[in-house]
């Protein structure tokens, strides 16, 4: 009923999580390497979109510059993966830290005075600044991009060696990372910190007069979100093996916004649905030149107009309608109707 409830159980979450895990696990079995690569991109974008939605859907902050944190993480990881014997773990950690640090720095400036529209524009402007710095920086490959990113081998306690040059092995590793991240984000979304963020979204002044330091909570949430975006970037670096300044461009910041609006911001699963539908449509229409954008645009328009709460909002509304039909049938019994009226009164 309510997205951040403490008292209601969320029984659907475990089956959804399991179904998604099974879907992705099976991809290398039935799909060609191109589709496995696309599924890897989907995992990266899911992590990106989930990070974005913790501040967008949960905390109610509109950031137009999340590409900056994705790019910080991607380039940091890319640089770490250029050596002769790179460590993937260090690259992922560096990516997350870089995204978090960049978000903390930009958030400190943008949250100082600005709220609402000003905050959105400031995050956009500062992200664009980073885009320019990256495209002019020789160390980061300028407009040509950062090349020579190595997919390393991982030695797991001397027992197994994971050879990530194999597309499938890298894909499974990304799946493990995305699943762990998804679990962490779920805990945050539904935990006490998530409840505080939801309260701030609904009424920041009221939250402040519960003794909540709204400014600091927003900054922490924004930095954590940047950390998630940085991790997504760090997952992207070994997958793509080439990073161009495009990943810091404002149009890249629009991606998680589109995923969240398409899937629904009020639900934890909304961004995941958004990524799958968006990339699915893009893939299905890839060979029809010029039509791809029209189909995706029309779908977005349809979803926004037909389901104001996104795909997830539409699904949960349908489920609720069915439930209320069941209740109506039950309450046709006059005794039950009287009882339910008493409760309502």
């Amino acid at each position, binding site marked *: 009923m309510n997205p951040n409830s403490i008292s209601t159980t969320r029984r659907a979450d475990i089956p959804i999580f399991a179904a998604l895990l099974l879907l992705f696990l099976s991809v290398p079995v039935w799909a060609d390497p191109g589709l496995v690569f696309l599924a890897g991109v989907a995992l990266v974008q899911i992590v990106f979109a989930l990070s974005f939605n913790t501040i967008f859907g949960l905390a109610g902050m509109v950031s137009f510059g999340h590409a900056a944190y994705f790019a910080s993480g991607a380039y940091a990881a890319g640089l770490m993966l250029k050596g002769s014997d790179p460590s993937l773990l260090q690259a992922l950690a560096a990516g997350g830290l870089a995204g978090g640090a960049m978000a903390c720095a930009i958030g400190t400036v943008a949250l100082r005075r600005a709220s609402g529209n000003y905050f959105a524009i400031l995050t956009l402007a500062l992200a664009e600044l980073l885009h320019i710095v990256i495209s002019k920086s020789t160390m980061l490959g300028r407009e040509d991009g950062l090349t020579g990113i190595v997919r390393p081998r991982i030695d797991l306690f001397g027992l197994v060696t994971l050879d990530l040059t194999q597309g499938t092995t890298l894909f499974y590793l990304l799946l493990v990372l995305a699943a762990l991240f998804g679990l962490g984000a779920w805990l945050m979304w539904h935990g006490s910190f998530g409840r505080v963020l939801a309260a701030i979204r609904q009424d920041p002044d009221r939250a402040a*007069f519960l003794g909540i330091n709204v400014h600091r909570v927003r900054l922490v949430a924004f930095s954590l979100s940047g950390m998630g975006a940085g991790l997504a970037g760090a997952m992207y670096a070994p997958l793509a093996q080439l990073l161009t300044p495009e990943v810091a461009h404002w149009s890249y910041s629009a991606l998680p916004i589109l995923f969240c609006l398409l899937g629904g911001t009020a639900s934890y699963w909304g961004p995941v649905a958004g990524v799958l539908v968006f990339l699915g449509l893009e893939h299905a229409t890839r060979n029809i030149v010029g039509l791809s954008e029209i189909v995706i645009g029309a779908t977005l328009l349809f979803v926004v107009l037909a389901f104001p709460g996104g795909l997830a909002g539409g699904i949960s509304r349908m489920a609720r309608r069915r439930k209320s039909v069941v209740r109506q049938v039950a309450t046709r019994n006059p005794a039950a109707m009287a009882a339910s009226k008493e409760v309502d009164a």
Partner: protein
Amino acid sequence: MTPSLQASGIYKSYGPVSVLKDVSLNVAPGTTHAVIGPNGAGKTTLFKVLSGEVFADRGSVLIEGRDASARPGFRRVRDGVGRTFQVARVFGEVSVLDNVVLALEARAGNPQSSAWQWLGVRAPAALVGEARDVLATVNLERRADDLAGVLAYGERKRLELAMTLALRPRMLLLDEPMAGMSPGDRVEAVELLNRISQEMAMSILLTEHDMSVVFALADHVTVLNYGEVIASGAPEEIKASPLVREVYLGHDHA
């Protein structure tokens, strides 16, 4: 005894409009203090200055003897001053119970809000139990599982009070607690506030338009007019003061 709340020489202006001029008041511990005055007298601005929503241009605010003039609202809440809003504000998208749980979790020094609870997906049973107890003090336990957004206005006011009480304040600031309530709700609310101030030995400062409420609750009354204190004293003195009658109580009380 140190006053629970002490404001001295408060000045506040919005641009060229000076709203508060040299306002001072003391709230003695365990007493109920009412601020009255005609519309536009500066009651709400004084309230905002005292709660830390805005800062005064000049003057000081002491909470239990300590200077809080520069402390923002959320810190004053942690100092033990809880407030409600003139138009009740609750978190409408979550349940009534969750509103109170949130307040309990936010309470400074709450042992259950320690670091390992940070990721607690379910609020601990003890916290939920305490939240139900707080709801019972304002007679809302029956609505615990309803969305706060669907509450009737009087119930919303009571929920807001419950959230504030959950913070265990030593002092309550209530901005027109009866505004928008039906006469029946008012009688009930006066009883409730009397019970709170007596049982919990809480200091209360309130602004109110309804004089019957003021005289039923207050131990001390301060009258504002055009941003200045024109009278201050026990309710009987205020009732008897010709000046107050003239500027505020007007003909229908004469």
